[in-house]
C-alpha cells in the first residue's frame, strides 16, 4: 500500500475506510531459498535488504508471535554511533547513516529524530576517556563534541550539577544521534519487504531444524515443515533456545532489561541524556512521556518482566541526575529478554552447520543496529562473506581471543 498526501486527504474525507493492511498474511510455501527465523527488527530488515539490495527472491520471515512483539517493540528507542573499539564503531556509524536515509528508503514514517545524545562525565578520568572515544568516533566519520560544564549547562540547565558525590563536569555530545519510533521501524521494514515479495508469516514458531550431513535442509514449525536452502536465525533473547535445537551452544546468556515511561509532560528534555556515574538514560517521546531505563536485572531470565530492586535503582539514578523528574508519575514499565553475549558485542556469522547463519548477542543495544544488522546479515546470507563493517562479529572470536569488550568486564554478561 502506498502513502501520499493526496491519499491522506481523500481518506480523511471518506471516513478512513480505504486503508488496507500494510502487509499480506500469506500461507507458508513448502520451501524457500532463504528463511529468516524471527520477525523482530533485525529479521525484517534482513529480509528487506535481501530482496532490495541483493536481489534475492523466495524469502520468508517466520515469527512465533506477531512482528514487533519482541525487543524491537520494547526498547527505549535510542539510536547512536558512539562506540570506541574498531570492531564496533564503523558498524554503528554505518547504521547511523542508514537511519538518516531510512524513511526515504522505506517511504514510511519511522519518526527518526536526530535530537542528539549527551553522555555525562563526572571525573577528569572519565573526561579523558570520552575525549578518546570522541576521537575514535571521528575516525569512523561520526560526529562528536566534547562539552565542558558551561557549554553543557546552557544546553541542559536542569541537571544536578553539584551533586556532592557525582558532580557533572561535562559531556560527550553526538548531535546526529537520537531516537526512532520502534514499532514504526518494524512496520516500515515489514511493509517494504512485503512489497518486494517477502512472505511474513506470523504465529509460526520454529520448533526444530532438519539437518542432513552437516547441512540445514529446512525448519520444523508449528505450521508444518518448511524447506530452505539457507536459514538465518535472528531471534535476539531466544538465540540460545533456538540454536540449541540445532545442537549449538552459544556464548550468550538471556537477561531481562526493563524500560519505564512517565505520564505525558510538556517538552523538557530535548535529546537523550545518560548518567555517567550510574546506569541511567532518559529521553522524552513526542507524546511527552519520559522514556528511561538502566541496568539489566542481572540474573538469567526468560520472563519478560523484571523485579523491584532495579525499578528502585533506576529511579535513584534519575533522581541523582535530574531531581526535577521526582514528581512525574510512572505510567508503564515492562521487560524484554536481551541476548547478552560474553563480550557485550554481537555475532553475525556462519555456524558449524552449512546453510545455517546466526545474528545475535545484541545485548541491550541492538535497536540502533537494526538497519546495519539487517544489511550485514543480508550481505552474509547472499554472498557468504561478511559485510566490511561486520568482519569482527565472528562466532569463533572467543576461541581465537579477538573479543570486542567495550566495557572491559570479561566473560560476565550481566556486567556489560
Amino acid at each position: 500500500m502506498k502513502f501520499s498526501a493526496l491519499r491522506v486527504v481523500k481518506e480523511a474525507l471518506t471516513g478512513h475506510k480505504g486503508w488496507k493492511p500494510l502487509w499480506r498474511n500469506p500461507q507458508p510455501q513448502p520451501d524457500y531459498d532463504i528463511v529468516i527465523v524471527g520477525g523482530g527488527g533485525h529479521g525484517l530488515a534482513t529480509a528487506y535488504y535481501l530482496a532490495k539490495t541483493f536481489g534475492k527472491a523466495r524469502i520468508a520471515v517466520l515469527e512465533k508471535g506477531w512482528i514487533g512483539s519482541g525487543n524491537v517493540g520494547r526498547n527505549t528507542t535510542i539510536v547512536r554511533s558512539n562506540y570506541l573499539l574498531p570492531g564496533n564503531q564503523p558498524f554503528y556509524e554505518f547504521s547511523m547513516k542508514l537511519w538518516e536515509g531510512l524513511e526515504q528508503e522505506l517511504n514510511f514514517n519511522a519518526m527518526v529524530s536526530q535530537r542528539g545524545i549527551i553522555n555525562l562525565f563526572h571525573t577528569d578520568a572519565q573526561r579523558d576517556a570520552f575525549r578518546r572515544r570522541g576521537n575514535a568516533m571521528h575516525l569512523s566519520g561520526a560526529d562528536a563534541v566534547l562539552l565542558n560544564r558551561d557549554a553543557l549547562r546552557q544546553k541542559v540547565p536542569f541537571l544536578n550539577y553539584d551533586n556532592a558525590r557525582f558532580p557533572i563536569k561535562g559531556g560527550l555530545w553526538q548531535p546526529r544521534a537520537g531516537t526512532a519510533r520502534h514499532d514504526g521501524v518494524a512496520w516500515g521494514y515489514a511493509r517494504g519487504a512485503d512489497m518486494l515479495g517477502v512472505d511474513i508469516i506470523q504465529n509460526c514458531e520454529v520448533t526444530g531444524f532438519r539437518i542432513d550431513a552437516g547441512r540445514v535442509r529446512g525448519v520444523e514449525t508449528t505450521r508444518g515443515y518448511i524447506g530452505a536452502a539457507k536459514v538465518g536465525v535472528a531471534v535476539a533473547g531466544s538465540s540460545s533456545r533456538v540454536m540449541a535445537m540445532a545442537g549449538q551452544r552459544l556464548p550468550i546468556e538471556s537477561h531481562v532489561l526493563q524500560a519505564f515511561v512517565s505520564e505525558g509532560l510538556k517538552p523538557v528534555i530535548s535529546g537523550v541524556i545518560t548518567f555517567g556515574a550510574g546506569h541511567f538514560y532518559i529521553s522524552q517521546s513526542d507524546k511527552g512521556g519520559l522514556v528511561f531505563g538502566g541496568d539489566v536485572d542481572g540474573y538469567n531470565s526468560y520472563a519478560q518482566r523484571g523485579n523491584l530492586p532495579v525499578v528502585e535503582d533506576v529511579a535513584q539514578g534519575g533522581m541523582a541526575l535530574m531531581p526535577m523528574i521526582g514528581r512525574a508519575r510512572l505510567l508503564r514499565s515492562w521487560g524484554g529478554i536481551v541476548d547478552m553475549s560474553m563480550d557485550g558485542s554481537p555475532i553475525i556469522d556462519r555456524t558449524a552447520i552449512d546453510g545455517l547463519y546466526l545474528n545475535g548477542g545484541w545485548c541491550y543495544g541492538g535497536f540502533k543496529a537494526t538497519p546495519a544488522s539487517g544489511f550485514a546479515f543480508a550481505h552474509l546470507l547472499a554472498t557468504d562473506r561478511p559485510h566490511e563493517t561486520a568482519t569482527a562479529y565472528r562466532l569463533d572470536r572467543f576461541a581465537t581471543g579477538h573479543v570486542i569488550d567495550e566495557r572491559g568486564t570479561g566473560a560476565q554478561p550481566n556486567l556489560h
Partner: protein
Amino acid sequence: MLIPHPLLGLRDAEEFVYLGDASLMQRPDPDSPTALTDFCDYVFLRDNPAGVHRELWFHEQGDRSWLVVTRNTLTHEILGAELATDAARPTVTQEPSA
C-alpha cells in the same frame, strides 16, 4: 525474589551478587589433551536454559557464602538453595574391591 538461605532463612535477592550457571564450579582438567577447547567452552559457552537453572549466587551483604540456587528462568520461581560447598562435595562412590 527471596532466596531460602540454608543457614539464614529467606533473604532478599538484593543482598546477593549473581555469577551464573553452577556448572562454573566444574573447572576443566588443565592437564587434559583437550584443555584448550575445554577451557574456552567453560569460560564462554552457556546452556542458558529456559526453565530450571542451577546458578551461583554470592551472599555479599550477608554471610559471604556461595549458594547454588535452583530457579525457573521462565517464572523467577526459586525452587531451592544449598551451600555451594555442599553442592561441590563429591558424592561418595564405592571403590570396586580388588
